[in-house]
């Protein structure tokens, strides 16, 4: 089986995996990092969102063979002490209900704000449209992103 060296949250990780194994399962099953979630396997819900070179991607649909030397950031590596402005805003607005989709929401929001630090309401809605929340925390997500945008 092919071997890969991945850069995850600033460190190198060696893994052996089938070349078509999605990055999500590499992260969860092979590296044992459980913050990134499985939701649909088809890049339709955003629960598995991580950053590849700072940009939000759906890890359930990216085969490990295509990661190359890109730098992967997961929710565990977004900040040292949970003090990323998005995480702080999430706490301030008490965004989560069940919490399952929130890793993906937070990673997507952080990526959105790094490319557009002062998004309009419509830009937030469009930028977050790929992340589903069945509990319906959309309003608080929007408010939290607005709050975070003032401190980035």
């Amino acid at each position, binding site marked *: *089986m092919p071997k890969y060296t991945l850069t995850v949250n600033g460190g190198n990780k060696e893994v052996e*995996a*089938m070349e*078509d*194994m*999605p990055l999500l*399962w590499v992260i*969860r*099953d*092979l590296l*044992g990092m*459980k*913050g*990134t*979630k*499985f*939701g*649909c*396997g*088809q890049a*339709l*819900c955003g*629960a598995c969102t991580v950053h590849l070179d700072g940009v939000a991607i759906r890890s359930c649909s990216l085969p490990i063979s295509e990661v190359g030397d890109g730098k992967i950031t*997961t*929710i*565990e590596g*977004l900040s040292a002490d*949970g003090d990323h402005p998005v*995480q702080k805003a*999430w*706490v301030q607005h*008490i*965004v*989560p*209900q*069940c*919490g*399952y*989709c*929130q*890793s993906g929401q*937070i990673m997507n929001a952080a990526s959105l704000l790094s490319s557009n630090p002062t998004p309009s309401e419509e830009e*937030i*809605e*469009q930028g*977050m*449209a*790929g*992340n*589903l*929340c*069945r*509990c*319906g*925390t*959309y*309003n*608080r*997500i*929007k408010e939290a992103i607005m709050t975070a945008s003032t401190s980035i």
Partner: protein
Amino acid sequence: MLPNIPFLKKGKREDQSKIFVASRRDFLKLGSLTAGGLILGVSFQCSGPKGETITFAPNVYISINSANEVTLVAHRSEMGTGIRTSLPQIVADELGADWSKIKIIQAEGDEEKYGNQNTDGSFSIRMFYEPMRKAGATARYMLIQAAASDWDLEASECDTQDGMVVHAGKGKKVNFGDLVGRLEGAPIPAPEEVKLRDFANYKLIGTDLPIYDLQDIVYGKAVFGADVDLPNMKIAVIKRTPVIGATLISYDDTKALAVPGVVQVVKIEGSGFPPGLDKALEGVAVIAENTWAAMKGREALEIEWNLGENQNYNSDQQQAEMLESTKGKGKVRRQRGDFDKASKAADKSLERTYEVPFYAHATIEPPVAIAHVKEDGSCEVWAPNQHPQWARGAVAAAIGTDVANVKVNVTLLGGGFGRKSKPDFVVEAALLSKAAKAPVRVQWTREDDLHFDFFHSHSAQRIKASLDASGNLTGWNHHTVFPAIGSTGSKEELHPSDGELGLGCVDFPFDVPNIRIESHESTGNTRVGWLRSVSNIHHAFAIHSMMDEIAEARGKDPLENAIELLGEDRDITFQSEMVDGEFGNYGEKIEDYPWNTGRMKNVIRTVAEKSNWSANKAAGKIMGFAAHKSFLTYVACVVTLEKGADGKNVISDVHYALDCGVAVNTDRIRSQFEGGAQFATSLATTSKITFDKGQVQQNNFDTYQILRMPASPKNIHVHIIESQIKPTGVGEPPVPPFIPALANAMYQMTGKRIYKLPFKV
């Protein structure tokens, strides 16, 4: 037999509680606690079938150690409602604890130890508010006694706050932790000596206390079902029967076993048809070293099925048949006066039909469970489960062991909405762990979730209303038909149960002199279950859409119409009008939780004021209204639509007014209503499950759509009535009134009534 569904069966009422000294050994078994100090157990006394008192062992433990840490055991499942916070919040407030020092550990599923753990039916707060207060107050009493005796001061002059006993007059204070050593094994005060705090003195109840798991979730550390890792654990993905009731003829696993990482292929025997609520479906499981290998292995399976009796089932066809059946006479379930007479004498008659499709729960966390059947035959489970005791029993039955040998640990649930009450996926994990002789995680994919859900039933309804020449509503005839939840367990269950009709149908509250409510027969052809607010979804849509038409026919404002038709402020009892049936009242006695028209009128008036209904209507705003009581909570809802810049309709504002009695955690109440509006928007506008040839036609979130942020309601305003009446739940009540309120707003926008879900906004 119906399962233990609280609102379908009269459940045990846990209305009396007893506080006692818990065994340290029992408490320590719960977790790696090093606590020394005060440990209290709380037992809830229940009435048995003949009204006798049954005392259970402790449902909840409180421990306070010398480091001033207060540990509470959460025995209800957390699926996003905030219950892991709200119940401890009540204990902590009575106790006078420092919330920052509270630790919560999750209880395993054990009826003897914890009493009812079925987290369902919006009843955790309703059932446990009072016992939690008593538990906290008892611990406070004991701490105060100890401190007062040390100080040689009157206990009645002392209080607790922030984890200390204080005597304000003398300026004395002492930490709980400094007192608890002496309280080990101390006698419990008589219940009559323990006084609950005055409502005005609560500091946590009635506040926006943030949820206990907030930081863990935001940092990605919270543990959900799939996040538990065990040594040597295998992962299983199952190819289940394509049609419910189909059976395996043969399978070839050669190619599956050739996939690197696949270790075993195992057949799971299903329970045939009807499938039952707690059994595994027939299938072939691929067990592998990782999830991806298991998924690829499943794709490589070659299976021949006998498709069985549901292979020609088509849900559109059944819905058309159900709709047709409502033209005839049904089984009368509630009767007042003589509808036929009223109808003949009517000056004006309305007759409308309503259709609602199947829905899937589509929790973002698909079902997943981990089981470890050990060499000695015992089994330990980790699962996101709403009803761990049911799972425990179902696993024991499936693997052939005693319930005592099964331990069910409850993780956080990545959404529940009723789906994760059913333990079928837990049973699968146990069966496969037994076969693999290793811990096994069964991972459902999204496709599995949508194909093999316990769906919210599709339905057809017909409502006839009669008005006399003065515009009085003189007659109401409601026909309802939908495959009953009971049909999942028995082919005999052709009518909805009393419990299902008690969800928004026979509890029609309006003061109409002639009422006849009828149900019709339909068969179950898949797995039917309960989804957030259950039959209230379709009943509320039909009734409050019709009420809007009646208001129009009477030339009345819909809110005034509803207030007028609710009649005098009074408690309504329904039982005397039930025909051969029982009025369920969500498992509560009607004397304890009456249907009070005054409380309903109050939420309607509140929502009118807060939404500025009259002025906004006069100014031409497009607004729709509905008010519906469910799960004993009163809710009125106003939805406002606007035209967006692109010409599309936007749900700009939602106003909810609600009366749930005491509001324990106001932030979580608001969040349930915010989320409830979003959830209901999905049901109303985006979601639909259909069957053809016995198979679900939707596969993933591309074909089974749930609401995304751009179309979500923009501003949701939640107005909580201040009350000291005993509390009721808020998880489900936001959903039912929203859908007709939105449909009624759409009528204002387009001039067209909506009779079928989902509809385009």
